């Protein structure tokens, strides 16, 4: 007897974070705001790879965690200064990740 157990369509998406990407990044102008679903608490570097995948770009992965000087990364409004690859911060439900590039002003 084969016992077929259907996949649980509501397999736990344990965490949803809000993502804002705004500004000029490596030759692309991005203005994105979306919710990213995570199955578990996830390190920032890995979240950036997920963002690349969602947007169909190779941006954050390419920089391997060392971001250019005019990019500002905020987690829940606070700036993340470390090289991202050195960060031990885990993003979880209701966190907000913003990546902004400063363009100057007049």
């Amino acid at each position, binding site marked *: 007897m084969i016992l077929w157990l259907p996949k649980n369509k509501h397999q736990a998406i344990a965490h949803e974070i809000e993502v804002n990407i705004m500004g000029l990044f490596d030759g692309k102008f991005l203005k994105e705001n979306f919710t990213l679903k995570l199955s578990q608490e996830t390190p920032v570097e890995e979240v950036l790879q997920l963002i690349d995948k969602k947007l169909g770009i190779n941006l954050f992965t390419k920089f391997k965690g060392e971001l250019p000087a005019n990019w500002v990364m905020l987690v829940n409004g606070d700036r993340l200064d470390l090289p991202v690859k050195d960060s031990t911060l885990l993003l979880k439900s209701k966190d*907000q990740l913003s990546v902004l590039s400063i363009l100057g002003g007049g």
Partner: protein
Amino acid sequence: MAKEISKGYMGKILWVDLSTGTFKEEEVPTREYRQFLGGYGLGVKYLYERLSPGAEPLGPDNILGFTTGPLNHTSALGCGRYTVVAKSPLTNTWGDANSGGHFGPALKSAGYDAIFFLGKSPQPVYLCLNDGMMELRDASHLWGKDTNETEDQICRELGDNRFRIASIGPAGEKQSLIACIINDKGRAAARSGLGAVMGSKNLKAMAVKGNEKTPIADEALLGKLNKIIRDKLSLKPSKLQDFIMMLVKPLMPLLFRLKVPLPSPDFKLVNQIFQDYGTSGLVSTSCESQDAPIKNWRGIAYQDFPMGKKSSKISDDNVIKYQVKKFACAKCIVACGGIMEVKEGAYALSQGHKPEYETLASFGAVCLNDDVESIIMANDLCNRYGFDTISAGATIAFAIECYEKGVFSQAQLDGLDLTWGNHAAIIALLKKMGERDGVGNIFADGVRLAAQRIGKGSEAYAIHVAGQELAMHDPRLTPSYAATYCTDATPARHTQGGAAYFEAGLLKSVFFVRDNLPEMKRYDYENKGKLHVLQSNYMHVINCAGMCMFYPLTYQDVPLVGMINAATGWNLTLDDALEIGERIHTLRHCFNLREGFLPKDFQLPLRAMGSPPLTAGPTKGITIDVDTLNRNVYLERGWDPISGMPSAKTIQKLGLKELVDDLVVAKK
């Protein structure tokens, strides 16, 4: 002996004595153009010589100048800017203000590189320069009209819409210390309160039109340099570029793998942002990163003005959805400006200029106002009244905090419930300020005077340097803005260069490649003096030549020095140009020293330096070391950090000995 003809210039300036109604032309020797270039460089040279120290800024002895540069009224792209100069009534220091539009080139077409006004007219007048004729015409019927009405009325009575007009509105007439001068109905020579100087002279407007051409040394070279700019910044690729891209595109992955260097398209995309949105495209990122100050400089972006719910509502697409057509300054291919229409509602507006970043931040983030239509209205009111939008918005934020802290009751505010984000109250107070009506009279002269009038500890909420309200860039994020705010002769301004753009990663220090410049780290307070000075000096060249700063900001290698050489026939190197910039900077500073100012008189407010630091957000825990930044700038310039005096060697090197001899003698 044949008369020397200065290429790039009209060769003469005009002095208008408003007390006597007389005119006097004066030829300018090439040597002086070569030393001071133009714009406020030329302005400070004449005002240092001819304006007595201690003159009352709103008295007849002040001199008001409208100045142009060698690239104005030529084919040079991006070169429509002109400068207004005078002793500032807002700060009592040197004052200058920079504006775009079409007035600067028109002034030169009337035959003059600069026009200076002396004295005071017994009744309101406007200057008309019309194809070689000059006349002071009665402006009594214009007094009280806003700047837009003034421009329309003058064109009607002169019978010609081709006149370009610079005017003051009621704010300047009433000598508000934050009054500005408006041209093209919405381009502003905003800072330093120079609109009040114009009002104090009973000078309502200038209307200029002419047919003179600027003599150019090498038009063909200027054309080639223009082509470089056009190719770099142009957003419409030529057919050849399209064809090349079609061939190259399939090879791109191979080119990347082989590490073939390809030109960075970054500057075109920055240019695209400016063209699509103007600087309104920058608002939400600036707010969220805390480049923009929030809630009178004490707020935290994600708590008080978060991107998702607030700042995005006054940024980019949410601004330009009201734009009905674009506006470009003279000879500009970027066209960051626009004309707006708000069809209905409390802030309905048939036509007004697009608010740019500083206005959206000062009436938006600083006041916690997320209603974009009210900010469009505020911008239009400021243009019509003739207010500096930075100072006006910042002063209203100060008023809001006073109300919050109980310094004012609602009754004392003429019934206004002036709470954070209450856009109706913000607009109402702005109108009162424009009319000096009721409580508006307290706030019509900016935060320093308002705090002095109010007392009760309100000085702590007044965010200014030496009386001028800070621009909308927070030194807690980009520390070198503090050095610009404190060490430029016109305090609190963000357009006077410095190391900030390098800290933010926008410009590359290799531009000054022959200097061994240390690596730029944002919160390193040593090691920045040299780069700060170099970029400040370069910015003076940009401003005084007549170029818009967004060109070298977007495309750092813009061939500015080459363009100056092409226009003038000179053979300047970058070093020569930087020396001119240093001379201009130093003489403006000497103006302040002669007025009795010391470096310690230019203090950054505690809030803006992060004392105490914010407890959350992108600049959490940051207190910047302004003293070290400023000291290093002074030392790099060869100035004493305490007295501010340039060294004898610096004065000698810059050829200023004869000019500032009175200062050297007095300080001994």
